[in-house]
């Protein structure tokens, strides 16, 4: 597909992300058991399940309304830290593309950047704090770079994906400053941050949907 995403495409992406999250349940739960309280996967999985249930409705909206609706659903269903963070992120994303029916290459970048900023402001965390930010921030940076360099779509998708995955991977050696992992004696060092991992799943699925 060309880089012109409809609400239906985005709903399609949600399904893909759900599948990837869903099948990694044990792994993500292990991570949150090691660094947090063990519920991150069940929280986020429940949220995506709800989104998938609503995917027909979502697919019928304008993209910006869709993003807003996703934010509301995520905030209501997920709860916990990730609920309010993703909720805030999607509401901000909706605002950033207000009135838009579809998303072009540039708009998708705006969406991701709006999400990043919303998460940072809601959670008072920064890159390097061992959170979901550490997957999203490098992905946004890479995305912008690709736009500057005007790479082809396939390259962009691969590079953004890699940035997100590497970013999640890098949380392994970080010390947590925000969130439950701060309670660990070693601040979670040695374990990936579960929120960064599920963020990377979403960015991967996102890029996969567009890169076809």
């Amino acid at each position: 597909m060309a880089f012109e995403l409809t609400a239906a495409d985005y709903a399609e992406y949600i399904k893909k992300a759900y599948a990837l999250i869903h099948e990694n349940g044990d792994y993500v739960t292990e991570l949150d058991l090691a660094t947090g309280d063990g519920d991150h996967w069940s929280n986020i999985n429940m949220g995506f399940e709800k989104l998938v249930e609503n995917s027909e409705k979502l697919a019928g909206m304008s993209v910006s309304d869709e993003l807003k609706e996703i934010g509301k659903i995520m905030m209501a269903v997920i709860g916990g830290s990730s609920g309010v963070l993703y909720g805030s992120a999607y509401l901000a994303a909706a605002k950033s593309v207000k009135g838009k029916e579809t998303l072009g290459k540039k708009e998708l970048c705006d969406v991701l950047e709006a999400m990043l900023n919303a998460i940072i402001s809601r959670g008072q965390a920064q890159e390097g704090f061992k959170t979901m930010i550490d997957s999203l921030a490098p992905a946004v940076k890479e995305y912008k770079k690709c736009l500057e360099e005007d790479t082809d779509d396939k390259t962009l998708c691969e590079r953004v994906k890699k940035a997100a995955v590497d970013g999640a991977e890098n949380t392994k050696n970080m010390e947590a400053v925000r969130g439950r992992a701060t309670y660990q004696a070693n601040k979670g060092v040695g374990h990936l941050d579960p929120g960064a991992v599920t963020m990377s799943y979403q960015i991967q699925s996102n890029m996969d949907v567009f890169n076809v």
Partner: protein
Amino acid sequence: MKKIINNPADVVKEALQGMQAAYEGTLDYTPGAEVISRHEKGDKVAVISGGGAGHEPLHAGFVGKGMLDAAVSGNVFSSPSPDRIGAAIEKMEAGKGVLLVIKNYSGDVMNFGLAADLAEADDVEVETVVVKDDVAVPDSTYSTGRRGIAGTVFVHKIAGAKAEEGASLAEVKAAAEHAIQNIRSMGMAMSPCILPAVGKPGFVLAEDEIEIGMGIHGEPGVERTKVKTAKEVAEILLDKILADYDYADSEVAVLVNGLGGTPLMELYILNKEVKELLESKGIKIYKTLVGNYTTALDMTGCSLTLMKLDDELKRLLDAPCDTPALKW
């Protein structure tokens, strides 16, 4: 996993339904928002708290005269979302303002914080206080910092009593802050709890191991050690508390709290040791609570909380209350 449940996804909803059924006419339940609130709305500051489920009787068990006006429940060990908190605010605010009592977890702080912002936007006066009594965690302004645990019960009691007196929002907030400054807690876990949605323990402790300072969601503590006697446990918990805040020559309220799976008998034994230690240190016990007040599902273990009292805190502590889990 052996639990008396129907479906892991429904535990919070069904538990609150079952709770409300036991207090028909006294407590209301708002489906979806998972709010337990007082049946009668008072013409006073509304005191609202909440957080993840799994800490029963906290929070809904402290809804009632002289304590909370409403409690908002998230999923198990997960903060409630802003819209749930908003529903509680909308239900109980009576034009005198709302105090949100928040335990210091990122999720709670973010969700309650957003809910407060949204309510303010709707012209409801909202103040927040953050309970951070767990001395197992170093206090910090930079990082997430100290957790809120069983001392929260005292904060509910003090804030609720102040609000019941007809005090202003600023006064209720000040009373809650005053309580928070004087409360310290420290816990110990002996076995993990099992989350209904996970079905297996979050960590493992060897047959002869306990963990000092573990949090109420199984967050790691400060030290794993061999099983201790009740006397040693009392010493360890109390020493850590006394090292953090000066209780010398003061009068205190004591809470010997069970984490859910520990029999009352053991909590009483611990209380005996705590009492003797406090007496030997010249700290006077004004009031003692022993029981399961802030739990972690079926975790075994305990926590100890001290609140240093002055005349105002004594009066508010002694004020009548009538809730499922605390009544006098």
